[in-house]
């Protein structure tokens, strides 16, 4: 276990659980937003602002953004180890794409703080 935590090698079981756990959060958020759009007769700025003003919605949105980042991180690693065989190139691409995934979370967070 120490070896797993101390190395950058991925853990199959942990990735398997993480992918499904984060997918559940992403699916819940998607379903909630779909329900919100269907059930809201007139979508105005006030309604939209009101939705994201609540602390529960802010936490839910942040949890979804973090879930997407974790999901993307594992998924990208899987895709890159399939298609990019040079470990140097794969490391660089993985580094850049992980930063981009983090940027999405950061931007989402600033948007939430702005509401």
């Amino acid at each position, binding site marked *: 276990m120490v070896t797993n935590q101390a190395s950058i*090698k*991925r*853990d*199959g*079981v*942990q*990735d*398997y*659980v993480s992918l499904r756990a984060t997918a559940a959060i992403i699916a819940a958020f998607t379903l909630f937003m779909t329900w919100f759009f269907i059930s809201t007769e007139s979508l105005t700025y006030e309604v939209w602002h009101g939705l994201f003003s609540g602390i529960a919605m802010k936490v839910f949105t942040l949890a979804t953004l973090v879930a997407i980042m974790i999901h993307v991180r594992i998924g990208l690693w*899987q895709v890159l*180890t*399939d*298609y990019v065989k040079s470990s140097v190139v794969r490391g660089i691409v993985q580094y850049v794409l992980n930063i981009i995934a983090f940027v999405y979370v950061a931007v989402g967070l600033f948007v939430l703080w702005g509401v």
Partner: protein
Amino acid sequence: MKLHFSIYRYNPEVDDKPRMQDYTLDVEEGQDMMVLDALLAIKEQDPTLSLRRSCREGVCGSDGVNMNGKNGLACITPVSSLGKGKVVIRPLPGLPVVRDLVVDMTQFYDQYEKVKPYLINDGKNPPAREHLQSPEDRAHLDGLYECILCACCSTSCPSFWWNPDKFVGPAGLLHAYRFLIDSRDTATEERLNDLDDAFSVFRCHGIMNCVSVCPKGLNPTKAIGHIKSMLLQRAV
């Protein structure tokens, strides 16, 4: 009636690159035949065509080929089941080609060897005469022991194509589960330890190509799901 075939030809010692060669067979109107019989008839026309075959009845698994884009055993696939047009025959995808339809299966066998496909018993409770199984325990092996190692499943799996050195593949994992679930085997923990990494089992994304092509009607995806559950249960 004429049957038209387009067959993959490649002899690394002579050819710069692979090519497809067309062949035509004259058969009686309405006559059907297995793809293997057609290949053997074509080989009589052109003796340079190379292919593997042995039992010619779906038992030995030697003549796995790709027919019209789908892997299967040539000896139990009727030509009529492949449609009316030209039948395109290629070697099993993903493995290095030795010549024409013959592939080098070393990577496949290396993965098979990794799962220790034999019964391991620590001998701590030796039976008086032999290791007996209840009918219920024996029933767990149904759908697993029938695999003939034709490699149709593993060579239809993209995860095996991309990582043949790390991902065990559906055939190997089917055998791994066959011994994990065997009541006479005592090396369950050791076997699970060997599979507990990010590639050996978890590279299976459950796309079920293996189930779709298995000529014996087996379900490697289900077996892999059971292995994932066993790994998960001991991790939480």
